[in-house]
């Protein structure tokens, strides 16, 4: 079983739609959960960062973690064409070196 599973997509939605991106993970010791956004041919950029279970909102983006089911979600409201990118979920792996375990990413396309 992979440590992090993510639907690769591609996912195509019309502008203004609500987008739901999801990941599952296997290691119950994960405490920190990150979402990265990666535009084509660029390095990933940190989008959101949450600790333990619960929700965190930042503008149009909401990150949700359910540790009981090992399920991570990212919701994008009022999606824009500029949100078209690959989204990678990234639970934190192992303490001292802060090794993040990255999902393979979901490619999202927002149609104008």
């Amino acid at each position, binding site marked *: 079983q992979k440590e992090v599973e993510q639907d*690769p997509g591609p996912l195509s939605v019309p502008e203004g739609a609500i987008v739901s991106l999801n990941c599952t993970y296997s290691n119950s010791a994960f405490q*920190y959960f*990150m979402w*990265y956004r990666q535009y084509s*041919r*660029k*390095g*990933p*950029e*940190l989008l959101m*960062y949450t600790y333990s279970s619960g929700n965190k909102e930042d503008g149009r983006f909401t990150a949700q973690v359910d540790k009981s089911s090992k399920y991570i979600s990212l919701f994008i409201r009022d999606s824009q064409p500029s949100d078209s990118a690959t989204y*990678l979920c990234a639970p*934190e792996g192992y*303490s*001292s*070196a*802060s*090794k*993040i375990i*990255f*999902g*393979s*990413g979901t490619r999202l396309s927002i149609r104008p």
Partner: protein
Amino acid sequence: SQTIHQWPATLVQPVGSPLSLECTVEGTSNPNLYWYRQAAGRGLQLLFYSVGIGQISSEVPQNLSASRPQDRQFILSSKKLLLSDSGFYLCAWGPGAPAYEQYFGPGTRLTVT
């Protein structure tokens, strides 16, 4: 603010040639440093990480090596490139425990021919 630099941006190298990719970080001290490789359409594979000068940990056995000669400099090397070494190489830095986030450089696209 912190800035991370990587060069070159693109590189085309023949099989069997050496490789040296450099990464430097500005605006922070004693960062954790990481090298990743991303094959086309794939996720990020951690290659090496370093929590201090001269401290390198390897995640995947391969013909690559890494060095950290200075606090904010991380170098990825190979003596002889293989076709399978082609990919997008990303350097990242992180503040270290208890913070776990990582921040990525612009990447180097390597094509081995």
